């Protein structure tokens, strides 16, 4: 964008939201060039609206100026979902972070998009309720962003993902019009389920300004069990047996040997270093049912070759069992300076063969690959370990990622279970959808966004590779920002 046009855009945005909350200064906008993915791109302007009307006003200006719009909340996207790859205006929501309404009678809350996921649940807990979807970044990511990517988390196995917990949205359309779809009631009344369509549309149709979410009563108890296996295959088979046997755990997480070694070194969670795999299982329920199910799951694990089963007797022990899992991503820093995380999904029963194939890729290429993942729903998170400063490694790792996603798609799965397509996988989407499928989606998109200005360059294949950002010297080091907190996990 030309300097004059950018200055005019900045002025107009400032008129809409106040001088303090819109800026085009090259120094100030630098913060908004990245998210948790390796790629970066500078926006032309950044705006921080204070309410829905201001969002609508911003969108009207953007329509008038014909510039792209990228909504960004916590910027925790691992797929480059909020990187303004075609420039334009980044709208960000730290000022719109209020819980507007709690309706416990009807199990609903109305929140603004900038509400941090965890703070919503923290606000609800004392009342005996919580908001179920718990993406790993829940301490930083927001409900608005969760809506954009249809975020998941470890507890989606039993309770479903974001879309199952959102009953309505207020959105600003690209034209600058504010509309409400759905609302308080369960989404099954009459009319098209536009709420369901917009959730997970990655900001390519509209900008969310208000969200109606379902509240869920907090389960009386959660019981956690750790099962230690000598190999991945028997652990995978145990998962299938548990699920098929009629038990629906709230979470089933798995770690392979390499991850166990890293985790043990970092957090001393007490995992045996020679274990081939550990399973972390959690059931929610009343004390009687949780105790019985834990018993049954332990038995199934032993029948499938678990050499040891540990059950947490109290909350402190439960936290100790989860500690290793939650610290898994951070622990990777002990093995390599960088990692590249993927988000493939395969049918549960195909887990053993896909994990074997990933192991074979690791052997062939020489890159270590850790597997820490949501085994219950077949959502893999292979972590390829590398060093971005060694020439050619990043390219090699991207090629490995591509190969693994193809593997997942060929096994009847998907290229993304919860991170979204974003920028990262916009070409990989072809592994699961053909031209006709994508054409229909493009048609739907154009209904909302005829000019294609909403988060352009995302979700749909462009035929061009994602713009590359060269690794920079320390200080501005990219890619793969190392998780800062102790408890970042995916």
């Amino acid at each position, binding site marked *: 964008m030309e300097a004059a046009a950018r200055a005019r855009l900045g002025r107009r945005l400032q008129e809409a939201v106040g001088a303090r909350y819109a800026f085009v200064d090259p120094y100030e906008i630098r913060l908004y060039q990245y998210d948790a993915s390796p790629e970066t791109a500078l926006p032309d302007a950044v705006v921080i609206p204070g309410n829905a009307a201001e969002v609508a006003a911003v969108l009207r200006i953007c329509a008038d100026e014909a510039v792209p719009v990228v909504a960004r909340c916590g910027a925790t996207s691992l797929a480059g979902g909020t990187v303004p790859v075609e420039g334009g205006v980044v709208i960000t929501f730290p000022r719109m972070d209020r819980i507007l309404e709690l*309706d416990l009678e009807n*199990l609903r809350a109305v929140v603004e998009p900038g509400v941090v996921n965890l703070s919503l649940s923290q606000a609800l807990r004392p009342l005996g309720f919580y908001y179920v979807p718990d993406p790993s970044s829940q301490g930083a990511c927001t409900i608005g962003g969760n809506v954009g990517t249809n975020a998941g988390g470890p507890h989606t196995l039993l309770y*479903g993902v974001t879309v*199952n917990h959102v009953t309505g949205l207020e959105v600003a359309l690209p034209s600058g019009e504010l509309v409400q779809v759905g609302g308080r009631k369960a989404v099954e009344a009459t009319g098209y389920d536009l709420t369901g369509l917009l959730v997970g549309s990655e900001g390519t149709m509209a900008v969310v300004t208000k969200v109606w979410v379902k509240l869920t009563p907090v389960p009386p108890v959660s019981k956690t069990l750790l099962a230690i296996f000598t190999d991945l295959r028997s652990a995978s088979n145990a998962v299938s047996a548990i699920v098929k046997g009629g038990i629906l755990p709230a979470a089933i997480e798995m770690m392979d040997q390499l991850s166990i070694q890293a985790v043990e070194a970092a957090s001393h969670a007490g995992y045996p270093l020679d274990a081939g795999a550990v399973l972390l299982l959690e059931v929610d329920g009343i004390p009687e*049912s949780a105790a019985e199910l834990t018993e049954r799951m332990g038995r199934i694990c032993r029948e499938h070759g678990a050499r040891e089963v540990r059950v947490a007797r109290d909350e402190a022990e439960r936290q100790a069992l989860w500690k290793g899992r939650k610290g898994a991503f951070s622990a990777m820093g002990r093995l390599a300076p960088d990692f590249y995380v993927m988000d493939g999904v395969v049918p549960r*029963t195909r887990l053993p063969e896909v994990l074997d194939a990933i192991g074979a890729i690791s052997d062939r290429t020489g890159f270590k690959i850790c597997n820490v993942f949501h085994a219950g729903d077949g959502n893999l998170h292979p972590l390829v370990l590398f060093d971005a400063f060694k020439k050619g490694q990043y390219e090699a790792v991207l090629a490995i990622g591509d190969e693994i996603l193809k593997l997942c798609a060929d096994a009847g799965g998907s290229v*993304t279970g919860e991170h979204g397509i974003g920028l990262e996988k916009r070409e990989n989407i072809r592994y699961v959808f053909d031209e006709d499928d994508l054409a229909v989606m493009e048609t739907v998109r154009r209904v909302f966004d005829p000019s294609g200005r909403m988060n352009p360059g995302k979700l749909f294949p462009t035929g061009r590779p994602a713009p590359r950002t060269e690794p920079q010297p320390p200080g501005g080091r990219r890619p793969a920002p190392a998780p800062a907190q102790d408890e970042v996990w995916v």
Partner: protein
Amino acid sequence: MTTGSTTSIPGRQVAAQERQGLTVDGVIPSRVVHPQDLEEAAGTLRLCAQAGAGVVVVGGGTQLRLGAPPRRFDVALVTDRLDRLLEYEPADLTCRVQAGMKVEALQAELGRNGQWLPLDPPSPDRATIGGMVAANACGPARARYGSVRDWVIGITVAYPSGAIARAGGRVVKNVAGYDLMKLHTGALGTLGVILEVNLKVQARPEQSLTLQAGFDRAEQAAACALALTRQYLQPAVAAAVDRRAGASLGLDAETPFTLALRLEGYRTEVDAAAALVEEAVVSHRGRMRAGERPAELWAGVRDWVAPQDPEAVVLAAWVPTPSGRTAPSWQSRLRAWCRSGQRGPRRAPCWRGCARPPARRGRWSSPARRPS
């Protein structure tokens, strides 16, 4: 009714004996097609689009009156030959079915592995999976298990252009591409014809227990049911019925109102839930009622479309927010209704959150969403 040349419109003439089953709001199509595969269905749509013919897709025909009357209805596309279970892997808890498969037939297949699709649309012996999705047909177990949108993980749709396109996939967790499953759920076939549906399934609950309680007043029964549905161990179904409705459902009612509850889950949970029910019933001035439940009670509640007895009332309390209103306003309407002494069937709330139509044909949704 038909415009353009009938010769270019696909399908055969509608025979006299099938006319009634294909009539939608009094509009009768001239031609009918029973496609045997995806390509034939898509080809039919393409030809209809070229001929400018209006198409209505017909599954089991149980929900044809939903929506406004069709402005054009030349060709009925009947999915009855697309009735196969294409894939089913019990350990993955997923299946892929053709749209014309009957809900009951699918449940029977799943039942062999102790699994089910926890959706209970009315008339499952006739309703098809595709029709259930297109009509977003849910039953009373919705409050506990969610509605159609929560169980559809993938969809294959034929569009008017003749294109066949998929969305979603076969895995339970998937955010690749737009969630067009949601767009087609409840769209009444206005955007395309659903040909295949991928579903999540679940293990059948370990135990199912039906309890009944008697109440003197409707508000007591409703308040008790609402209190229970907000608990962690919420009932799978809660239905409050008056004496007349109870009689037609086979309930032996000595009190003016009966609250029937179905508890489902692990054995230990059901036992604990039963104890909670007793507490709630007593605190709402009701009485637990012993005795067998009539065999067809839940099917009767599920299929409660137009009461045989126009005075009878079924109050469905399984949805926290009937009519999308808050519970208190619903309760105040209920109180007003109780006081008024009017018992017209139009007043009977139902699980769709709106009054079920009386015996004469009526419409309980407004938008004009028929294909033109």
